[in-house]
């Protein structure tokens, strides 16, 4: 009995392990390359985007993919963290924008999501459709109108021009509505029979039941806004206020040497968040589908 369970599990681990390894290649590459010296990076990847003369042997020269550095070096990190004051400032700018957005959107969206999922009112589904449609609009279209709104409200070149739209984003509303849709109507009705108001139902039934959704939302919002590019590009003219994502939006060939270390540092906060939040997606489901 026990052996018959062990074998499939090894097979399962092997399949997933294969995928995981495949998916991790770019990440591993980034990490190991972050420990190379700038010269080594230049030598390895200098040929990217070049059309070298065949007559001069250009047809036999290639980018040199290397996983392990010749010399272990922390020079890139030193460059990014110590010599370049910009990096750390941009890092904290990012934190200063992303944290309020997550807190705000989770709060505002959970309220709205509850209304869309569990309350009945006229035009509910139509209004929800409107929320969805705005999400589909490409950013180029709303660039000019957004600019007008921000400048009318006097938000130009202020962090609020990023944070406020972030707080009211439709993403969280949509996502939490879907997660609250799971909550059986019977729960709420039973609570109401006991004299609980909507607020109590929301606070003590909807929120606890939507916890996996909330955790997932926080993680995805973090990812989305940590990576945002368009909004700060337009609304924060002042380079002093720009987030880290703009630093890594594009790396010129001159800068490849420090790009890897910058990327690794860029990813760290998200990694930490994953480790912390992951337990929320895991617990509870374990083994649910396979017993017997």
């Amino acid at each position, binding site marked *: 009995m026990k052996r018959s369970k062990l074998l499939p599990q090894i097979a399962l681990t092997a399949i997933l392990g294969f995928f995981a390894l495949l998916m991790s290649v770019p990440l591993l590459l980034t990490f190991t390359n972050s420990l190379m010296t700038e010269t080594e990076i230049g030598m390895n990847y200098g040929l990217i985007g070049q059309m*070298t003369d065949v007559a001069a042997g250009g047809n036999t020269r290639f980018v040199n993919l290397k996983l392990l550095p010749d010399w272990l070096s922390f020079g890139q990190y030193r460059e990014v963290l110590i010599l370049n004051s910009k990096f750390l400032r941009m890092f904290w700018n990012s934190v200063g924008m992303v944290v309020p957005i997550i807190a705000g959107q989770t709060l505002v969206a959970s309220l709205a999501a509850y209304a869309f999922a569990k309350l009945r009112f006229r035009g509910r589904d139509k209004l929800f459709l409107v929320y969805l449609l705005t999400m589909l609009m490409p950013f180029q279209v709303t660039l000019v109108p957004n600019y007008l709104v921000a400048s009318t409200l006097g938000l130009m070149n202020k962090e609020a021009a990023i944070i406020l739209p972030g707080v009211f984003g439709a993403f969280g509303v949509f996502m939490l509505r879907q997660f609250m849709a799971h909550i059986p109507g019977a729960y709420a009705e039973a609570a109401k029979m006991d004299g609980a108001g909507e607020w109590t139902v929301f606070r003590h039934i909807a929120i606890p039941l939507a916890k996996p959704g909330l955790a997932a939302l926080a993680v995805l919002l973090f990812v989305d806004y940590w990576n945002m590019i368009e909004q700060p590009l337009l609304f924060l003219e002042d380079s002093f206020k720009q987030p880290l994502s703009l630093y890594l939006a594009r790396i010129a060939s001159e800068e490849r040497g420090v790009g890897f270390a910058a990327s690794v540092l860029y990813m760290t906060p998200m990694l930490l968040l994953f480790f912390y939040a992951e337990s929320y997606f895991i617990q509870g489901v374990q083994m649910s589908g396979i017993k017997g």
Partner: protein
Amino acid sequence: MKTTNRKRARATAATGIFLLFALAACSGGGGESPQIHTGKSGDKGSEQPVEAPANAGKTTLTFSTFFPDPHLQELVTQYEALHPEVDIQLQSVQTDDAHLEAEMEKFMTQTNTAMLAGKGPDLLVLDDLPAASYVKNGLLVNFDELIAQDSAFKREDYFTNILDHAKIGGGLYAMPISFFLHGLAGDEEALAQAGVEINDDSWSWNDFAVLSQKLVNKTYPHVIHTEPEYMLNWMVSDNLSLFVDESKGTAKFNTATFTGLMKQVQKMSEDGVIGAEGIPYFFPVQINSPGDYFESLNSFLSSNMKLYVKPHAQDVGAGGYFQPYRSIGLNQSSKAKEQAWDFVKFMISDQVPVDPNHAGFPLNKRLYAQEVEQLKKDGSVPTAKEGPLKGVPIQVNPDELDALENELTGATHLVSKFQPDQLADIIVEQSQAFFSGQKSTEDVAGLIQNKVTTYLNE
């Protein structure tokens, strides 16, 4: 049920107004940005007539340029000294080589968006912006109209050929403070020895290709100092109607004609007509000033250099090529157009002399005359220590100055048309793979055909 609904609606409205106030309050209370002043010209002061003691006290003009520019800063400082009631905020972007492309993209997006939103700076340097698209969207003021209304403006004070030919979409929307001359510096004597006669009033790139056959491996190893992909682009521009029909949106690059042209250019390269190393008959040059004219014509290792007009593209009449430099645009949405026009006139007036080395030829003829006078007085032009002439000064020849003036007044073709040249970008970028031997003619021609067709049909 109904009453609660109404109550709810009222409560909603009240909260809404409260929230809006809160928004406005916290945005209004925010501190000014420490570094750059934003391009938002929402200052009420700018709506006041110039002389009136406005509540803000001053008329504010915002003026945006991508590259920081000491000359513009000098113009601003001097103008403000003459007009204490005007405050001009010159904004620029600090960047370095590694971030140039990213910063440029950002600057474009920001400026395009602000202009389309009817905000944006009062004045802006258009050199790095898609000014032709601004004109199409009616975002800029036509200086021709301002000139026509302004009796104090005397056209004859300026290079009128530039005023007439720096137009975009039928009007002068970009006022160049100065301009560069583009041409070919060629060795006149060596050309005569080879028995080649050049009529640079009307020669075309096709003519150039023909006569280059006579020049190969005579006095000099090469005919022109350039890369094959640029030559290909010039040849295409000379035969444009063979390849592109803009009105129909069709391209014909996947034809024997085009692959033939590619092979012709490749042969020019193999024969040594084109070469980036070794001495050629012709150097493509950009002349920046009277002093630069002498330096350029003497620094290419021959003392017999003459400035020729660049060969012409198809359907382009006689005349030389110029590139406007520091072209100023006036925002149609500006609230202080009169003041801005006054400042533009100041910028092209003869009140602030230009730095003779790198500023371009001034649009203002009197400024130009001053420069020429100065040159004649000095009698020679100093050269760069690290340049090919190693700091040895060059004698100024008054005859050559007359020739230069002819070139300047005869320049009638814009080098760039205030919009990105997608066709040239595509041809130059893709054909590199062919000239380096990495891809076949058919592959490259196919790709060019592909991309150009997409571009033409957007």
